[in-house]
């Protein structure tokens, strides 16, 4: 029992350095600040694509599959089951979407993706919940199995000599193409925002760019994803179902003694987790119109990172996925020069950090930050692009950086990854 009680120590007075909690007004303020900073950066560096509508539109669609994977991870881990099999579940999702999509269209593909991913979730649930296999081990096994299964089935279903699928353009590594997923553009508004964006006014045009990206040619699946994030928040944090599910990740034994069927909730969570990851995979297939071998490209792992990055909260996951999407879209759309502008932004950020650290009397840290900022400025001045490799690696570097700096503030569900057996509590 003592281990549970350790945190109950209350001192005479809290010592130094109590930290402020991140409340929603604060978060909004931070986002607003970030927007101002980015538009300043855009104005200074002249990298107009930094805040263009096209950039944000692309960022949005790059963020969706990652965000869905991260949200899937959140469901599973909130119930206490680590899900490193997200990648495999995404593969199953994109495969199923490709398989159903070319015959029945994109909506059926999305549904199939959900089912395909859920199937992967089911396997994970059986292994971890019923058989008590280590979660990471099971996840790795699922990734291997999903890869093998999708590749094999693709040869049978898409690439069989003389089959209808092959005639429709399928092959061993790719499904036949499906029709377009409808998109929506808010008429009038989109053009108006586009017009404002064209003027490159400070802040106004940038805001127009962001909003324009959100109302121009957006896939309905993207909208669905936004709904899923909001829905997840309400379901997990504002309903009794969510309370029970989260209690399984925090204290399954307590939940059990209160009549919660922990197995059932873990199963449900892992199934939903797989379904969401599957939808993420389906989104990939639908947006390029076919399933393709290797399509997920590690996005399941990135999703996992955004979930940790987002502190196991939907808002955080969305933010993390948005960042990844933004970086991804930027490097794809305009490559080195735009990322080059970010050097300046990073330098400003580091300079700010140096000031804050200096005020907290942490000289060494302040000095390191200041030097790094100076190096970045010099680099920025002496070059007009950054190597493509650095751009490619930037999302991963950013994740490492964030985790290294803020991991202490992250809080995983308490019973995560721990084996749970019904009736074996003491």
């Amino acid at each position, binding site marked *: 029992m003592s281990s549970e009680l350790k945190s109950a120590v209350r001192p005479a007075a809290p010592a130094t350095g109590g930290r402020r909690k991140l409340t929603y007004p604060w978060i909004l303020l931070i986002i607003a600040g970030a927007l101002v900073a980015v538009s300043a950066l855009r104005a200074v560096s002249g990298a107009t*694509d930094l805040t*263009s509508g*096209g*950039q944000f*539109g*692309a960022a949005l*669609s*790059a963020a969706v599959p990652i965000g869905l994977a991260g949200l899937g991870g959140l469901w599973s881990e909130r119930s206490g089951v680590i899900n490193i099999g997200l990648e495999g579940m995404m593969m199953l999702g994109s495969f199923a979407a490709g398989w159903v999509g070319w015959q029945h269209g994109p909506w059926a593909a999305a549904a199939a993706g959900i089912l395909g991913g859920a199937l992967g979730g089911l396997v994970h649930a059986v292994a971890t919940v019923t058989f008590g296999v280590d979660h990471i081990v099971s996840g790795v096994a699922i990734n291997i199995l999903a890869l093998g299964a999708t590749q094999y089935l693709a040869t049978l279903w898409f*690439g069989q000599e003389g089959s209808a699928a*092959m*005639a*429709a*353009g*399928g*092959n*061993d*590594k*790719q499904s*036949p*193409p499906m029709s377009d997923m409808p998109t929506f553009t808010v008429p009038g508004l989109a053009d108006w925002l586009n017009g404002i964006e064209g003027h490159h006014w400070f802040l106004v045009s940038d805001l127009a760019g962001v909003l324009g990206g959100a109302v121009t040619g957006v896939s309905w699946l993207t909208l669905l994803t936004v709904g899923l994030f909001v829905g997840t928040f309400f379901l997990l944090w504002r309903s009794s179902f969510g309370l029970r599910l989260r209690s399984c990740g925090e204290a399954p034994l307590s939940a059990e003694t209160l009549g919660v069927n922990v197995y059932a909730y873990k199963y449900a969570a892992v199934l939903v987790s797989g379904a969401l990851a599957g939808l993420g995979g389906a989104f*990939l297939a639908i*947006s*390029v*119109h*076919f399933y*393709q*071998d*290797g*399509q997920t*490209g590690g996005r399941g792992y990135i999703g996992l990172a955004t979930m940790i990055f987002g502190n196991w909260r939907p808002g955080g996951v969305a933010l993390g996925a948005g960042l990844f999407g933004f970086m*991804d*879209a930027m490097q*794809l*759309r*305009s*490559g080195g020069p735009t990322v080059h502008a970010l050097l300046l932004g990073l330098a400003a950020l580091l300079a700010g950090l140096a000031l804050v650290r200096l005020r907290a009397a942490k000289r060494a840290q302040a000095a390191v930050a200041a030097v790094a900022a100076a190096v970045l400025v010099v680099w920025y001045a002496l070059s007009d692009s950054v*190597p*493509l*490799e650095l751009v*490619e690696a930037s999302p991963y570097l950013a994740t490492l950086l964030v985790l290294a700096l803020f991991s202490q503030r992250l809080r995983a569900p308490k019973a995560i990854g721990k084996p749970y057996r019904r009736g074996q509590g003491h």
Partner: protein
Amino acid sequence: GQSFAEANRAKHAGVGLAFDIGGRDDHSFNEAAARGTENARKQLGVKVKMLTAKNGETEADREQRLTSFAEAGYNPVIGVGFAYSQSVQNVAKDFPGTTFGVVDAVPTGKNVDAMVFAEHEGSYLAGVAAALKSKTHKVGFIGGVNNALIQKFQAGFEQGVRDTDPKAKVVSQYLYPNNDKGFNDPAAAKAKAQGMLDSGIDIIYSAAGQSGAGSIEAVSKVKGAWAIGVDSDQYRQPGLARYKDHILTSVVKNVDVAVFDLIKSCEQHKPLTGIHTYDLKHGGVSLATSGGFITDVQPQVDAARKKIIEGQVKVKETPKS
């Protein structure tokens, strides 16, 4: 125990074709090679066996594949793609009686036929057409992976544009610096093309394998913009039928011709060996005309073609940096 070769000695079994990772239906050079063997099957009556590479293969895997062909009596044995360069060279030594062919690479060996293509020359013509058709005088090139082969496409295209319209701007970008994923990521190509289109580029030439479908799709959404296809005549590909009205032309690499030539030479017991360059002159590369979208600029394209064939224009293989 007994070795497999001893147990499975065979006579002439047919043509062995070993594909690169893309597989036989990659809408690209693997597919073209397959087409060549198909023609040989029809016209020469040879049997054909095809095997495909897996992701993450080693040299030994490829050698094993070629060896199993040779052991089973297939002749010629053809490796499609430069990945087979080293393995063909190694295996050819062990089977002097078998003719080996390889596409896109120049391994050495007495019994090896190296089939290489002048992609830069074909791309030059695409550059000419693009320069003439662009209304914004801004054209783009998307490479799948920044390697030597794809740089040939880029170099030729840029030179063609510049020689035709000195004012025109060419933006060349790669999806991945160094990752074969680049030939396999249409979503990335789509985003990249979108970015180019947003910046006013109206013609995009993609040399990115399967990823090209993504950029073609992005182009198809913009009125007045054109895509240029690669390797095969992409106007005619069933998977891209929906976008064919936006495919200006394609730089076609006639791998099928090369493969057919090799098979035929073997059937006639005069197997080709050494390096065979399939360039513009020998019909190894060409600019497709399906759809008739370049009919209006055909004279200029033909003129450029003639200059290259006659040696008046020398097309570079590496882009000016």
